[in-house]
């Protein structure tokens, strides 16, 4: 991972350097392809455009999209981060996350922004404007980020941009998340519209909703921040758009017209020949290096249509991270440049021609078996030859529900530090919906294998802002530490509240999504600095509690250095007791029956006269029927008599004729 990042950093740095010499390079784009184990491929698209702050304030938009710029100005937004994500990053097999996790969000939509406002109310008002406007721009339900889904994180997020000191004091960080939102093509289209070259030229021409949302994991990110060059030049507003996706190579290669998966023929299977049962008709497939032959047109369904003419000519538009020993075939006119670190290379693309890149199937070296090496050795060798080994992430995290029943539950997060010698210090942030009422006193952390009692050295600081029913959600930020090579369980219990009839969504039985927990790993340097203020910090955190949160936030703005790595857990599905939705009608009918019984009985007792059984009028159907008969009979007889008379009259008339 660090290799990946350093590589990106170097390429960006070089482009930044070049930018200062050529004034027109206000736009960059780059695609980095990295094959991952288990027939997966990470494609990282990165687009960056700049506009000077003066042009931005004069409403002159060239590379910066006008639609977004207008919204930012209207809502007084100084820095904006918007994420649309889908799927799960499989850290166990894919390793560390791209961009060190800085460009991804939890499942659904995540938005955090620094707004310039004098008071909290003004910030809330601007936040409302911002979410509503963005909701229209990105066709997402961002307008549902209301007070119950908005928090003001204190420790987890730090501004990325360079803000002048005069505005920092007035900046309010607001964070909203919509875990239920399904990210889809209608979010990609406005995303592409923000790019200067749209999806018409350059690497963006590869992006297609069918492939992007079919990926195993994808994350679209938009980051807007002011950047001031170190040499004191004019500050620019930078918009960075990132799309990271992990494609399942086998799945993507299926032809669009015939997407039904079919078994491979036997001779194309990669088998693990070390298994004792390996024979001509039995095979244990080697997943990790299978399907490592692909081409851009197979994966994305199209090729790259030249370069975007606005892009910085010094940034190579496509880079590939495979060992240098692998052969790569590219279309004519393109130039391959090896980066010198043996695991990555970049390609320069001719501006007008289509660009195609193909990796042939890796050839198993024929010589080692002849020398009689062990089978495992070959296997290892082949994997090293085919793939760049993914880097181990700093921390593995998974979160799940515990407990049973409709009333109470618990949340357990398993945090595993794979490093053998370094402890990891991080901030664990949850923003929970108000209907999950957590019991803070049950929160405990324990190291696996040790006694289950609370280990005080794990949790350093807790910032907790309790929920208010129907008004705001729970915000929980925990600064904690995981010792080297150990696993920590962080658990707490909660109670499920009962919602009102109208508060249930249409598919209430599906459950309610609980947003992903955000884990921000602090850079090692900042850990020691903050650990000395531990005692005070914990006190302040508890004291800051509910009310003084924002004020404390301002003070804590720069307490932690930028995050070294961040990751999100998966979102959870919390099932609440769901009522029968015909309830109001049942209640009406039930109440009516009860009233009829009580009132009718009481009233009759008060009003009726009680006599002996043989004294009153006869009750039951009999007398009523006789009465009815007596009433009806005269009428009936009259009818019969009249009919008879008319008949006689009629006969008489005929006789007269």
């Amino acid at each position: 991972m660090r290799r990946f990042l350093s590589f990106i950093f170097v390429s960006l740095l070089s482009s930044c350097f070049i930018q200062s010499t050529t004034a027109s390079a206000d736009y960059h784009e780059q695609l980095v392809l990295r094959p991952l184990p288990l027939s997966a491929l990470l494609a990282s698209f990165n687009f960056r455009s700049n506009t000077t702050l003066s042009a931005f304030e004069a409403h002159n938009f060239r590379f910066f999209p006008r639609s977004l710029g207008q919204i930012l100005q209207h809502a007084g937004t100084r820095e904006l981060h918007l994420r649309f994500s889908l799927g799960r990053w499989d850290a166990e097999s894919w390793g560390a996350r791209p961009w060190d996790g800085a460009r991804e969000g939890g499942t659904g939509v995540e938005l955090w922004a620094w707004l310039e406002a004098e008071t909290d109310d003004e910030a809330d008002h601007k936040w409302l404007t911002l979410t509503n406007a963005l909701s229209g721009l990105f066709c997402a339900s961002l307008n549902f980020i209301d007070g119950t889904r908005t928090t003001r994180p204190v420790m987890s997020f730090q501004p990325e941009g360079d803000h002048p000191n005069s505005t920092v004091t007035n900046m309010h960080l607001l964070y909203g998340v919509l875990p239920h939102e399904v990210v889809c093509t209608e979010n990609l289209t406005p995303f592409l519209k923000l790019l200067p070259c749209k999806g018409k030229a350059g690497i963006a021409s590869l992006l297609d909703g069918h492939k992007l949302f079919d990926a195993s994991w994808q994350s679209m990110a938009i980051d807007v921040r002011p950047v001031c060059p170190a040499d004191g030049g004019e500050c620019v507003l930078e918009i960075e758009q990132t799309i990271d996706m992990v494609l399942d190579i086998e799945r993507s290669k299926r032809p669009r017209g015939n997407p039904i998966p079919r078994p491979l023929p036997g001779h194309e299977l990669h088998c693990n020949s070390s298994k004792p049962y390996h024979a001509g008709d039995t095979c244990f497939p080697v997943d990790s290096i299978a399907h490592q032959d692909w081409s851009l047109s197979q994966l994305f369904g199209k090729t790259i249509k030249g370069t975007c003419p606005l892009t910085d000519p010094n940034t190579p538009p496509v880079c590939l991270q495979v060992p240098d020993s692998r052969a790569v075939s590219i279309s004519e006119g393109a130039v391959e440049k090896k980066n010198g670190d043996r695991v990555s290379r970049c390609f320069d693309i001719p501006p007008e021609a289509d660009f195609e890149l193909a990796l042939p199937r890796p050839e198993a070296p024929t010589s080692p078996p002849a020398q009689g090496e062990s089978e495992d050795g070959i296997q290892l060798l082949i994997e090293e030859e085919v793939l760049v080994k993914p880097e181990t992430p700093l921390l593995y995290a998974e979160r799940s529900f515990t407990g049973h029943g409709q009333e109470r539950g618990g949340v357990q997060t398993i945090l595993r530090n794979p490093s053998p010698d370094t402890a990891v210090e991080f901030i664990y942030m949850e923003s929970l919906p108000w209907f999950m009422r957590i019991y803070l006193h049950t929160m405990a952390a324990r190291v696996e294998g040790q006694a289950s009692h609370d280990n005080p050295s794990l949790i350093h600081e807790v910032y907790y802002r309790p929920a208010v029913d129907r008004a705001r959600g729970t915000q929980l930020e925990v600064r904690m530490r995981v010792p080297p090579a150990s696993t920590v369980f962080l658990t707490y219990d909660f109670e499920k509240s009962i919602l009102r009839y109208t508060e249930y969504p249409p598919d209430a039985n599906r459950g309610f999504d609980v947003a992903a927990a955000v884990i921000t790993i602090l850079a090692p340097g900042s850990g020691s600095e903050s650990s000395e203020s531990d005692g005070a910090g914990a006190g302040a955190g508890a004291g800051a509690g509910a009310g003084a949160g924002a004020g404390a936030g301002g003070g804590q703005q720069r307490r932690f250095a930028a995050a070294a790595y961040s990751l999100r857990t998966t979102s959870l599905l919390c099932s609440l007791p769901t009522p029968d939705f015909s309830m109001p009608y049942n209640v009406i009918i039930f109440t009516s029956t009860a009233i009829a019984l009580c009132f009718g009985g009481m009233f009759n007792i008060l009003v009726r006269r009680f006599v002996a059984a043989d004294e009153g009028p006869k009750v039951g159907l009999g007398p009523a029927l006789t009465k009815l008969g007596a009433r009806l009979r005269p009428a009936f007889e009259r009818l019969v008599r009249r009919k008879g008379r008319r008949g006689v009259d009629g006969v008489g008339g005929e006789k007269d004729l």
Partner: protein
Amino acid sequence: MTEPTVVAGAVIASDKSTRKPPPPEKASDVRRRTWVILSFWFIVLCLLPIWWRTTTIYRANLPLDEMLEWADGKACRPVFPLRISIQADALQEQEAQNLLRLTQHALDDLNDFSGHHLRLQLSPPSTVEHQSRDRDDDTALIIRLVPGEFTSSTLDPYAPILDITYPPNTIPSPTSSSSSLAAYVASQLRTTFAEEQAIISYLLSTNSMPTEHRPQGLTPEAAESLSKRTTRSLKYAPTYHLTFSLFTSGPLPSSWDIEAAIDSYMRPVLDVLSPIHNFTIDTQVQLYASPGVQSQILNKEDLSSFVNAAEWPLSPSIGGAPTINFILFVGNQTIGSTAPSSDNPDDATNITTTSSWLLPQWGTVYLLSLPPSSPHVSLATLKQPLLTFTSHLLSLTGTPQSGSLPLRLSTLARIRSADLLLRASSTLGSLARLSLALPSIAIPGSVADGVQKTMAHLRLACETLGGAEGLAHARIAEAEAERAFFEKSMVGQLYFPDEHKIAVYLPLLGPMAVPLAMGLLNIVKEWTKRRREKKERGVEKKNV
């Protein structure tokens, strides 16, 4: 008839024969039962008003009659008194007064529309020009009479001044009752204000003004062209948002000198318009924008679908101001020669030229063809498009087309105030009709408040019509009327119909209402029976 009753009576008698009659009831028991039933009914009757009060929908009192009066144009007769001062420094006071009187007569004879009234006044001879400029607010036009060789008139292009030269012999003598100079001045004035008069009378005629206020002399053709022009112009707003977009079908050009171009070609007009409208401006560059019509030569039908609304990022600005779009499209498409409509020459010259066209209430598209590999649009290239945009902006804001610019703008202010006045009045009328038509709609207090404010401002606007104050009042009145009409909480109650109430109340109250009603019925029966018996007893006594 009598026979069957006898039979029935016999049946009942035979039935009763096996049963004993109940013992006679004590009078106190009867009285107590009556009291029980009556007290239940008493409670019910006491609760009824409470129930009524708590479930009724709040409807604030609206002055419906007055509102309808406004809508019908009975409350205000829009009159635009235009004061025109005559500067005749070369004339004697007496002569000037006489000329003024004669011209006023001639004007009154010519004028057939009472709402638009030109009133002449003599400005003191010593008036210096800058003083008269200070008094722009109440004088619409200044006529400067200068002796000269022959009769002629010119409009000053930068100030509301009409220069008229006259040969000295045309001065009317104090005794004459007619004068050619007076007639000439009157006819000049009339032509100067003809368009304004036509527009205002058109506005009045399209609204529900009573016929006696309506002008007669509006020909159908003139009305049609006016209606075209009014549909083209945007609804009045204090602020307009101008968006200048450079769209190119390919990757080039990607930059333009728009800021400098706006400053040099458009800013002067925007500054002149600033008393009536504010403007905010933004610009953008969009590459790879494919138009909605791909054909090389655009026909008239293609022009309306040229703007690719689905792909071009032309979202209106956020905030209340309406957006006017000015699009400069760089491509090689041209407008076909048949495109300008031949039926309306006015349209052909003003709206559609060979490279640009106006989209009503939306903006303008200008087609610019450039050499294929030019990365930058220079200031000089932008001159023609910007001038076109400027003239279209005037037409989109509804500025009249004839006359000098200052006159056109002062006319615009009067037209806008008339328009706003009529619009606010008709909104009031709609609100009144709505509240009459839907008896179950809730009318919160804020609506009544808004209506009161609207009417107060309308009254003020009506009194000060024609001036800047009138425009301000009309603006407030219109905003308040719209706010009252689109009050959110009025809509909510609409969807709770009476059938639902029955569905809730009937199962709840039915089981209670039946025993109560039966009890009351029994009381009434017994009471009548007792009265009859008493009567019979009384008759028997008398007989005895």
